[in-house]
């Protein structure tokens, strides 16, 4: 089987898709395009700095380039450097695997106050994404809205003691910021009861290892449902006698962020019995992600030939979070990518006249896979104490090293 396939987005979904396509049909020309000069997307900039084991999937992805023959076109932004129509004209198949990266807003009064920050914005800064905004002052009493795994990740990072980042790739800037944060209490709030909280129990159990924290779990309730009971059991297992207090609250529906002089002072919630206001110095939202406005996702999905299978239009497909929405773990995106690979191989009708990668080659600022290997080597050759990687943090430096 021959054919030219461009995958937009070098995160886990895009890499798993290339892996599955090339495993089934090694002769395909598979090119993975990414707006960043570096591959792996969410694995590099979304998986927590202290979850290096989870990042181990990049060894598989490296092989997609090194052994399976996929090519990386980094620092090439769809819509700016090449538009979707041009890509579709050049390739037999184009797959959108750009994920979702925009923090979903609270949509309540006060959500535009200074001191309200999205989890994506904060974690991008913590993980040194080149486009990240600076890390802000959260004050002594941040309040997290949301209790999915992203919220738990953020909580853990804010609550950890500096020496607990040993072996991570947390950079010197973020490490210093965390060490000087002055955080005394962290409150984490969920809309549902504890039994229906979105976190995985294993994520909460991990919090139990933190040394500098004491926990206060308020009204976790009980549950007849085994999955719910596991969540409650994980919460019940949290103890600790550290100086920082982490409080879990449930059944709180955000109603208003209350400010004074433009700054966050408290958060008001609706509860089952009325309302409750919790004082705080910042509000950190982890309630999901929206698509980037760079691509007309809603229009593409609304007009899709088979949205469930990821078929948007002839020769145009979507996978991962871009297709399904911002839910599901890396393995779920692997399964999704494998199913889409089978569909593409069924559908593909190669046109030998299509130029494929010739339309991308030769651009001055492109970073190819060898370029990424040079960046990777630079990031891992001289390691600071207790770190497994020192990320290059700007595009300009990445591009310079890649050359």
């Amino acid at each position, binding site marked *: 089987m021959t054919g030219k396939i461009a995958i937009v987005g070098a995160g886990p979904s895009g890499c798993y898709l290339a892996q599955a396509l090339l495993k089934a049909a090694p002769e395909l020309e598979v090119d993975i395009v990414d707006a960043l000069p570096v591959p792996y997307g969410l694995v590099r900039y979304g998986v927590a700095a202290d979850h290096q084991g*989870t990042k181990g999937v990049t060894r598989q992805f490296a092989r997609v380039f090194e052994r399976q023959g996929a090519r990386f076109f980094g620092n090439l932004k769809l819509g700016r450097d090449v538009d979707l129509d041009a890509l579709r004209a050049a390739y037999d198949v184009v797959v959108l695997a750009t994920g979702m990266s925009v923090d979903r807003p609270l949509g309540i009064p006060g959500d535009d106050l200074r001191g309200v920050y999205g989890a994506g914005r904060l974690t991008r800064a913590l993980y040194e994404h080149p486009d990240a905004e600076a890390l802000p002052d959260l004050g002594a009493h941040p309040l997290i809205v949301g209790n999915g795994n992203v919220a738990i990740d953020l909580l853990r990072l804010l609550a950890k003691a500096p020496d607990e980042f040993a072996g991570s790739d947390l950079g010197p800037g973020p490490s210093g910021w965390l060490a000087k944060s002055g955080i005394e209490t962290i409150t984490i709030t969920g809309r549902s009861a504890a039994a229906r909280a979105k976190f*995985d129990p*294993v994520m909460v159990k*991990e919090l139990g*290892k933190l040394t500098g924290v004491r926990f206060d779990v308020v009204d976790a309730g009980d549950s007849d449902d085994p999955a719910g009971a*596991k969540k409650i059991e994980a919460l019940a297992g949290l103890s600790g006698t550290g100086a920082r207090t982490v409080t879990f609250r449930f059944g709180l529906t955000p109603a208003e962020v209350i400010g004074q002089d433009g700054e966050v002072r408290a958060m008001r919630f609706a509860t089952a019995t009325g309302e409750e206001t919790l004082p705080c110095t910042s509000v950190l939202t982890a309630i999901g992600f929206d698509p980037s406005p760079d691509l007309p996702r809603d229009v593409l999905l609304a007009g899709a030939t088979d949205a469930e299978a990821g078929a948007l239009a002839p020769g145009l497909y979507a996978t991962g979070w871009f297709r399904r929405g911002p839910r599901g773990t890396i*393995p779920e995106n*692997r399964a999704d990518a494998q199913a889409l690979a089978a569909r593409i191989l069924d559908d593909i009708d190669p046109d030998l006249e299509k130029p494929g990668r010739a339309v991308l080659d030769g651009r001055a600022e492109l970073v190819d896979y060898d370029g990424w290997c040079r960046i990777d080597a630079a990031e891992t050759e001289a390691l600071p104490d207790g770190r497994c990687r020192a990320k290059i943090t700007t595009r300009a430096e990445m591009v310079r090293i890649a050359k």
Partner: protein
Amino acid sequence: MMISILYGTETGNAEMLAEDIQAELEGDHDVTCENLSDVDPAALDPNRLYLLVCSTYGDGELPASAQPFAEAMDAAKPDLSAIHFAIFGLGDSEYDETFNHGPKRLAELMLAHGATQIGERVAHDASGSDMAEDLAFPWAEEIVGQAEDRLGAAA
């Protein structure tokens, strides 16, 4: 020797390691590599050595691709008394309470149905500094050496 490497995977890491072990052994042996999801436990062959490579997922659970195999085992209760296996686990000590529970459960399941385990269950830690294959290749060589004595001429 006839060897079947069977992997239980969720992220693909165990699959990659299984393929690496296959490549390492196939110069000297007849080696196949299959996903546990495609294997019927009642159809295991006493003349083969089974090398299981299995990860852990979630809260100490079997990875998705090992679950149909475990369910078929529970349902059919096959007699595995003539089957020899060894097992290599992949895990992450960040989650220390459930570290390598998936392969542990899979080994227990094989033993409960009468299969004979060769060698010790070895565990790789994704949060450690070793590469999985650096532990798995010597493990596989050692297991195959032991199995040649045990399975003898049959293989």
